[in-house]
């Protein structure tokens, strides 16, 4: 026990405390800024986002070390910050006090750890945080009445609705533009128009309308807030014929607290400029690469300084050097995050395009569908978003073609005539969770079995479990079967979808209830430029595993191990979990003794979770995933490589790919 205690303690000192300290240092500065800004009635959404992410990182770190009280407290604080972030209004004084109190409690708990004590319990504080996180937005009320077609207002997203309401309350001018664009090139023209408008005002929403006569072009409604006058909007339309309605006159000055549009008369010149600055993506990539290399250089410097500190513990200059180098790290991280943030764009860009596609495809398939896209304000890296568009379209088409029944069939089943198809996005710290939910017929697992058996993927003699079906529909080869067209469940080309999601270092899962509907859940990091990853050790080598691909980290309790044939099974609280060593998955040389590993990373897809045994967890950090060359990039389970600061390549793994590669091999044997 004392032995184990000491190693835990060492791990704590090495992995948790320095990083926690860096986070606290950055937080202190950001909380000061938050307080100053809110005293001046200024709102800076990016600041709340930063604080939110810092708390989120702290939570992750604490969870990795099993520090439950710190994890819990950070979680509750995160919830409160999440609410403030989504509301878009600055925190009020009591909330600021509460945030400070939670921050102090987190520091105290961490300090106790470094003094070998237990973190303090904070039940009362947590209760207050939770109740503040649930509180209603004090600014919310019944929507301000505007002379706006209820159908247009009804199709606004929650976020757009809120911005419209804030602008209306804040006394900003509000205009509605109605214009027709040629279906041939409406995308480009609409983008150009929105850009031109954004130079003068805030574009709250662009709403396409399909129920009009579509033969003479597509009708769009654009809601603009904060424009000076009608003429400034006319100037932006640049020759496109548009009807312009005034929804609300602008008041000379908007009151504090709300978030008025960033118009030219709002006095926020800097933000106004940055919102319309157009920069080629390549230049942003270059910036990010430079910052990434700088951070790697800094890591090397930090290591050298630390070694120097160890060999000259008494030298004051050396101590000062170590301190200064450490202090650079949070700043550089801030720079790196800033460089990443400029690449983030709201998912609405894809959701909008997808919405148009759904309307057309539903009509073509003879289905009646109500489509809702929620959470379009969730932000994602530009490059990620471009990659996501096609899998999303694929899944939505599947839902329309195979999930949602025809109106007649729905009525026969006692369902509403119109099907429901919902696309949602929710930010989850450094990841985004996207769900595609339909209320169609679900997946018929017997048909899955028949198709899989015909494709040689499944032994036709066996009965099939829902878990197996959930795995099979994603299998390579399942979609190319000649029977696809007879399959009235899903399964068309889902292997392609999963491959695309894996390229984004994400995961996809499916849940369904026969006759009631299907939900696909995609989780991806918001950017691939900097991905939080767990660094593990196996076979004397380090590997990085993106956090989004991991279900859970396990510390193996040897009493729960048992053998089952040639497999090792772990009696997990959620059910038996097969274990496999990373070393054998990777076919690494340099075998260590069987059963040495004490840690496992749980990964895999629904019902096929596998615990991957490793020798140790070396910590969690954000890594830059670099592609490997063309001779290596198709190796299963290899997502790329990264440099952790010591000029050595560390392989970045895709655990699902590793597991799939292995099971594929097994069934072939």
């Amino acid at each position, binding site marked *: 026990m004392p032995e184990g205690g000491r190693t835990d303690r060492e791990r704590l000192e090495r992995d948790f405390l320095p990083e926690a300290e860096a986070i606290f240092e950055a937080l202190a500065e950001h909380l000061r800024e938050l307080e100053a800004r809110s005293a001046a009635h200024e709102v800076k959404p990016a600041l709340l986002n930063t604080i939110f992410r810092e708390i989120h990182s702290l939570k992750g770190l604490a969870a990795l070390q099993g520090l439950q009280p710190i994890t819990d407290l950070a979680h509750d604080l995160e919830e409160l910050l999440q609410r403030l972030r989504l509301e878009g209004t600055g925190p009020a004084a009591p909330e600021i006090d509460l945030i400070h109190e939670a921050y102090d409690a987190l520091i105290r708990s961490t300090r106790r750890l470094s003094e070998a004590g237990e973190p303090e319990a904070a039940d009362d504080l947590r209760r207050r945080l939770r109740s503040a996180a649930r509180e209603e937005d004090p600014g919310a009320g019944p929507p301000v009445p505007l002379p706006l077609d209820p159908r247009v207002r009804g199709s606004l997203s929650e976020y757009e609705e809120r911005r419209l309401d804030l602008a209306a309350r804040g006394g900003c001018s509000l205009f509605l533009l109605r214009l027709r664009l040629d279906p041939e090139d409406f995308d480009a023209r609409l983008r150009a128009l929105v850009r031109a408008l954004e130079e003068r005002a805030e574009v709250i929403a662009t709403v396409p309308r399909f129920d009009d006569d579509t033969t003479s072009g597509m009708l769009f409604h654009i809601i603009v807030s904060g424009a000076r006058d009608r003429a400034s909007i006319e100037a932006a339309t640049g020759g496109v014929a548009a009807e312009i309605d005034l929804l609300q006159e602008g008041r000379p000055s908007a009151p504090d607290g709300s978030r008025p549009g960033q118009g030219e008369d709002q006095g926020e010149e800097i933000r106004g400029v940055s919102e319309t600055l157009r920069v080629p993506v390549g230049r942003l990539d270059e910036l990010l690469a430079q910052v990434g290399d700088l951070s790697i250089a800094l890591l090397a410097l930090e290591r050298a300084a630390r070694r120097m500190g160890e060999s000259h513990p008494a030298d004051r200059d050396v101590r000062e050097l170590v301190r200064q180098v450490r202090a650079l790290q949070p700043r550089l991280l801030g720079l790196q995050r800033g460089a990443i943030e400029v690449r983030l764009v709201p998912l609405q860009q894809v959701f909008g395009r997808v919405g148009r596609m759904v309307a057309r495809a539903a009509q073509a398939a003879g289905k009646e569908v109500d489509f809702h896209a929620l959470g379009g304000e969730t932000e994602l890296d530009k490059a990620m978003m471009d990659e996501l568009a096609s899998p999303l379209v694929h899944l939505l088409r599947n839902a329309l073609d195979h999930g949602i029944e025809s109106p007649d069939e729905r009525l026969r089943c006692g369902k509403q005539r119109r099907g429901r198809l919902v696309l949602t996005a929710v930010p989850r710290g450094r990841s985004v969770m996207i769900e595609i939910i339909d209320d169609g017929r679900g997946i018929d697992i017997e048909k899955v079995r028949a198709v899989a058996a015909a494709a040689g993927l499944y032994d036709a003699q066996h009965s099939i479990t829902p878990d197996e079906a959930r795995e099979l529909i994603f299998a390579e080869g399942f979609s190319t079967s000649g029977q696809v067209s007879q399959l009235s469940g899903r399964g068309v080309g889902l292997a392609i979808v999963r491959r695309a999601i894996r390229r984004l270092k994400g995961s996809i899962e499916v849940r369904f209830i026969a006759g009631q509907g299907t939900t696909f859940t995609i989780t991806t990091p918001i950017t691939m430029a900097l991905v939080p990853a767990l660094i593990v050790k196996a076979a004397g*080598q380090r590997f990085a595993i993106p956090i989004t691909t991991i279900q859970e980290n396990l510390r193996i309790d040897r009493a729960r191990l048992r053998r089952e044939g040639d497999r090792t099974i772990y009696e997990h609280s959620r059910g038996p979990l097969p274990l496999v060593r990373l070393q054998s998955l990777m076919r690494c040389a340099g075998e260590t003794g069987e059963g040495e590993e004490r840690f496992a990373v749980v990964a895999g897809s629904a019902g096929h979770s596998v615990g991957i045994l490793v020798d140790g967890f070396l910590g969690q950090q954000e890594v830059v995933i*670099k592609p*490997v*060359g*063309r001779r290596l990039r198709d190796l299963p389970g290899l997502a790329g*490589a990264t440099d952790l600061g010591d000029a050595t*390549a560390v*392989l970045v793994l895709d655990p699902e790919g590793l597991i799939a590669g292995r099971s594929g091999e097994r069934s072939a044997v």
Partner: protein
Amino acid sequence: MSVLPSDVGVPGSLPPGPDLARVLIFVLEGREYALPLEAIVEVVGYRKPTTVPGAGSDILGILPWRGRMVTIVDGRARLGLPAGRDEARARLIMLRDEGEWMALLVDGVSRVEALAGGERDGVLLLEPAVFLQEKR
């Protein structure tokens, strides 16, 4: 890229041509080979790469270099020569082809030379792109 003079039997060797002027001459198993200078970015000392399980037998591993991940091809394995290296003298020749970077591990680098008219004194001129392909 299948320009293999059948009498030589070395993958990637180029037929003589007047337009190939300056080359880097290096040594593998006591024999001299050459690569056109324009394909070479840099020559660096040997550093131990990270092995990539499952990679081809001629791939030693990968190495971060100038912000990229470079695949290291073992020149001896690629040309079917016996294994063995003197790490103090061995060099990595960094090559670029269509935006992809690779490094060729050689026993040593001799000199830069103008190779007018192709092969001379038993020096074999190699085609860099061949190292980017699978070993057959």
